[in-house]
């Protein structure tokens, strides 16, 4: 079969095609296959890897447009997924600057993480000398978010980043903000919440691609929603926030639980103010990433009951005067 790899040598883009026998492909992981190609066919091929055990996050690439952790993906599974194709196309992660071939630049991501100050400031009853006290339930509340290995799969798929990255951050950055903000040891969730709001919290387009592709099963989308609820509870609904927020509440409780981006955009910003967003929606529809029929409602999403609970809590807070 043919493995087609999108190349970039620092100056120009091109493609390389490697012919492999099926027995050379089977039994390999995607990572060991890349290593095999480098070793036997083309030493100039560049990619990164360290742990080969799905824990360091170094090896994410795209196959036929979708992100995979190369070391954790068996070629047999890929062949099955794509129905024994004649060829497969491997490319670097999307929404990152490509340095060369399959290697991307992580520096902007680190600087975005810096914005949300990912480390907690512990409550004053705790000290460095004796540590903290925390219940297992409180650990469990943020346990999933701590599985993030900074592989970038979510960012590669993110439709908002693809449409316009200038007012947004990688989905995992929100996950990191949330796990700090929601930590029971944390003195002040605002430290993480405020920069999340300032850097695009309300701009997520709810496509949930990040959830689908995370190799660790993390929902950055869910974390973004949780941060929004937190923001509303704190009355942080300036700017585009409040209308968006209200629409969000309505959708969550009365709708099918799956945020309907078109409805939301129309409702919160008015049709006219919203031409740019409609472009995004149109592009998403074209790419098959958004179903226009959702405007008429669809199936209930998983965890809907949870969301309703969250929103109801927010409403209660609203009655008590925390949300204006």
């Amino acid at each position, binding site marked *: 079969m043919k493995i087609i790899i999108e190349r970039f040598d620092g100056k120009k883009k091109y493609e390389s095609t490697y012919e492999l026998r099926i027995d050379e492909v089977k039994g390999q992981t995607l990572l060991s296959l890349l290593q095999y190609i*480098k070793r036997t066919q083309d030493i100039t091929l560049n990619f990164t890897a360290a742990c080969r055990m799905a824990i360091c996050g170094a090896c994410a690439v795209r196959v036929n447009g979708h992100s995979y952790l190369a070391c954790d993906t068996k070629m047999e599974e890929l062949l099955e997924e794509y129905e024994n194709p004649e060829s497969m196309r491997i490319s670097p992660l999307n929404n990152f600057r490509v340095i060369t071939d399959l290697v991307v630049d992580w520096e902007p991501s680190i600087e975005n993480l810096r914005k949300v100050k990912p480390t907690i400031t512990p409550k004053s009853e705790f000290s460095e000398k004796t540590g903290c006290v925390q219940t297992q339930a409180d650990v469990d509340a943020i346990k999933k978010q701590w599985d993030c290995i900074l592989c970038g799969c979510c960012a590669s798929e993110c439709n908002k980043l693809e449409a316009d990255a200038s007012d947004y951050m990688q989905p995992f950055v929100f996950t990191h903000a949330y796990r700090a903000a929601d930590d029971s040891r944390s003195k002040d969730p605002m430290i993480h919440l405020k920069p999340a709001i300032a850097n695009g919290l309300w701009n997520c387009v709810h496509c949930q691609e990040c959830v689908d592709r995370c190799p660790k099963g993390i929902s950055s989308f869910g974390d973004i929603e949780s941060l929004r609820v937190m923001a509303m509870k704190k009355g942080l609904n300036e700017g585009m926030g409040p209308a968006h927020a209200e629409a969000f509440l309505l959708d969550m409780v009365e709708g099918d639980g799956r945020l309907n981006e078109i409805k939301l955009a129309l409702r919160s910003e008015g049709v006219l103010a919203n031409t740019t967003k409609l472009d995004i929606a149109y592009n998403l529809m074209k790419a098959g990433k958004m179903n226009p029929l959702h405007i008429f409602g669809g199936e209930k999403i998983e965890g809907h009951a949870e969301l309703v609970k969250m929103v109801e809590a927010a409403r209660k807070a609203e009655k008590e005067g925390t949300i204006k």
Partner: protein
Amino acid sequence: MSEQKFTRRDFLQSACISVGALAASGSGVSALAADNKKDSGNKDGLPSVDVLVIGSGGAGLRAAVAVRKKYPNLSVVVVNKGMPSRNATCMAEGGINGVIDFEHGDSHELHAYDTVKGSDFLGDQDAIIKFVEKATEAIHELDYAGMPFNRQKNNTVARRFAGGAKYERCNYAADKTGSILMHTCLDEAITRGVKFLLDHYLLDVAMDGDKCEGAVLLDMQTGDVTPVLAKAVVLATGGYTRVFFNRTSTPFNASGDGIAAALRAGLAFKDPEMLQFHPTGIRTGGALITEAARGLGGKLINNKGERFMSKYSKRMELAPRDIVARSIETEIRLGNAFGEGMSSYVLLDLTHLSEEQIMNELPQIRHVGLLFDGMDLVKEPIPIRPTAHYSMGGIEIAKFDDMSTHLPGLFAAGETSCASIHGANRLGGNSLTDTTVTGKLAGEGAGEYASKQTGFGSGKHAHELAQKWQAKFKEITSGGTSNEMYDLREEFGKQNWDNMGIYRTGDKLEAHAKSLEEFQAKYDALKIPNPNMTYNTALIDYLEFGNLIMLARCACLGALERKECRGAHFREDYPKRDDVNFLKHSIVTLKDGKPTLAYKDVVITKYPVEERKY
């Protein structure tokens, strides 16, 4: 300078030359910027920073944070060959040792004793006694820094047993302690204003007279060789177990670059022959199957269908790591194993467990079996073989309290360093403690040293080294064939495994020393056919391979001369421990590019040397 518009070029220039903007992470601007240009001796205006940390595993990140906390006016830059979170630290699963419960019989004394005994008495007791006290502090500090440890019923940090320990003092966070620890440290470093120089590879350490003046880095993105001046440098580049290239549990980047650079700078490599083997690695490539598999009753089976551990230990599969590892290798040598050569293996049978039990307790291991060998341990026994796991040896430390080396201004921490805490054998859970404790000490040591310096070195040596490397890169990227280097590396790993692995003999080691010279000669003539310097990963492979050859030569010399069995070092021709002649550290340095060996006494203060029995 705004946070957003921050290119890497700006960074090197500004991090380094107008330190203020960077060091500032919001507060007090450092006075260094001015100092930098005037009195520093840095006349060429080379990029410079107060403390340069190389390597961003647990040790490097702890060091960087320690500097920021204690010396907020100093600038700190962490260099890494790649994105900072790709390291060995994140791979640790089990836990991190440190006594935090003193109510139920455990104490610093007992942790120290277990560590000394575990080291087969090659550990330096003065360092170990301090280490275990700092271990307790380290756990609380990590907790305070936001590490989400699992919790006990009383809401304090949860802990379990680890091999060789009398009490439960291995603190853990699910089965991902290392990953969670590393991300805690990374988050803290990011939050505290530590700057990262991603995709930079340490080539050499530079000296001004008898002091360290900085380091020479390869900017992997552009191929530029960049000398960076620093008042203090911390090496935290991890271990060198990739000498066994395809039989190790460690990441591809565990190539001992920092140790090799230190050797070239004239420093000593202490106890290089002390490499730890783990009994259960996956057949293909040596990824780790954790001890828990044997803890849950996993049986080891040979090609005769025998549960062969009955021949070697009363404790069967639960005997200590080194004994189980040797037993498996013996079976392989007796012809009682499956497969051939490097892919020989025995079976690990867990089929007595239900699928539910496996999914609850060993999900990761099942996954690994499926991934690498396409075998499901719920249904069938899976192939395993011992795998190289940890480097006890490392850069010789002059003083544990600040992790300084014998080169003023140069500090080392974590697996790269050898403060002789683990001696001839590291206990499970003690190395995450090592990274956290020695990382902090090295950071504080480097900070203190840097704050006392009035300026930078002249940069002359750094500049010369940079030019030398540049010329070399031109030459070596101008020819060769694709697979030549990789074939040689494969063979190198195999030979190290066969001749310097779990079983060692004088004859084999002697022959191996010669063959390593040949590897060196072949390597010296090697070229790689890729002149494009944009993130040239083949060039990085080449550089790492060169370092591994040098470190293997040192290890081979140490192993050849250590005519005894101690800890992980097992000599068939000298099957006993010899405290009369070898209660000593091997100290290897380079003379004219050749390893030479000297010895140094082990420090024994409190715990008399006795037989190591379990």
